[in-house]
């Protein structure tokens, strides 16, 4: 039982890093997705390189580059800042691809119909295509968010006091090597399951609305 209370101390940090990283990713992912879809090579080629490089290097390596590399030699960052920033940038790349496939899934007839009605490109995007793309992208985005909750455990490697960090500390302090990690596993599963259920519910609600 004392393992549970010790490991639970990490939950706020895990949630904090996950939410901040998602927020960064959700915002930065949008221009990245639009640039990636642009017909202009000056926009889509760099966007593609950024996305591929962000996704091609393991998250923990990014955190090390940011925390030990940039943090030691250029600007000083604390572990939470470095962790949120690193995971946020990676999330931007993944979410950009999710947005992009959502936009791609909206039938081109929708663009044509809105421009035939005289809507500007921006209006078409914001009022017609965007909402539909959001609907399409939502399941993938929520799957990603649930995945990120677990993957955020890598921030323990740079010293963020998250669930895994607490489990490791508790294990060292008490000498119990199995229980703290089992508790950590259980907490991740308990955190992830309601999120999965909520996203499924939201998905079916949105589907009903779009079908109508």
């Amino acid at each position: 039982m004392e393992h549970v209370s010790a490991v639970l101390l990490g939950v706020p940090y895990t949630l904090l890093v996950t939410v901040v990283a998602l927020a960064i990713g959700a915002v930065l992912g949008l221009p990245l997705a639009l640039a990636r879809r642009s017909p202009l090579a000056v926009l889509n080629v760099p966007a593609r390189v950024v996305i591929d490089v962000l996704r091609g290097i393991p998250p923990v390596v990014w955190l090390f580059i940011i925390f030990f590399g940039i943090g030691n030699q250029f600007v000083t960052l604390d572990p939470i800042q470095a962790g949120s920033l690193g995971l946020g940038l990676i999330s931007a790349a993944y979410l950009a691809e999710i947005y992009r496939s959502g936009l791609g899934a909206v039938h081109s007839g929708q663009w044509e119909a809105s421009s035939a009605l005289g809507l500007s490109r921006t209006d078409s995007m914001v009022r017609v295509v965007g909402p539909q793309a959001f609907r399409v992208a939502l399941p993938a985005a929520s799957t990603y968010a649930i995945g990120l909750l677990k993957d955020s455990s890598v921030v323990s490697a740079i010293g963020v006091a998250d669930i895994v960090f607490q489990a490791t500390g508790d294990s060292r302090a008490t000498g119990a090597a199995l229980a703290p990690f089992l508790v950590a596993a259980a907490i991740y599963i308990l955190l992830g399951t309601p999120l999965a259920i909520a996203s499924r519910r939201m998905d079916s609600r949105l589907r009903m609305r779009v079908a109508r």
Partner: protein
Amino acid sequence: MNADLLSNWLEWLPDLGRGLQTSVLLAAVSLAIGIPIGLLLAVLVSSRRAAIRMPSIVLVEIGRGTPALVVLQLVYFGLPNAGLTLGPFTAASAALALTTAAYTSEIIRGGLEAVPKGEVEASQALGMSYRDTMRFVLIPQGMRIAIPALVGFGILMFQATSLAFTISLQELLSRAYSIGSSTFLYFQVLLLAGVLYLAITLPSGWLTGRLERRLSRHL
């Protein structure tokens, strides 16, 4: 600075190259063990018998719900308590294989479900048993459909080998880190490590895209 960086990189490359080898080997072993177990779990999860299906689903969900890092800690630090001590490489292989099994079982199940239902009916109409239908019709096609997603997962698993840094396996990241801690050139050496990861993940990613297009053309 650029000439410096280049000469540093050349100096570190052999050491990091050995680390990369370990990472690639670890990924290969984990996938080679994990994917067959994933296939088995996919078949069990697709079972019509609830007594087989339900425990398999629970197993898969636990496997997918637990971060690979936690599985790794459990196997390496936890199992010795239960009387089973594994070396870093074995522990990392076992942990990543478990994660692989849980994830790939869902990918493979998706592949099995994507096989047109009419083909299952055709083999039933020919009098074939459930087992034979699975073996000769569903699994060969389901696996083929799952290949692009499996390769994609394989790339993520290769990236996940970097987590073995935490159990002091001498893979790419931990070699880069130890060079960093002795030279204090963290940024430069970690950047090289990143480039080496990219050297594997980028071509594999392109390969997946091509594979996807090829396979969708055939099916």
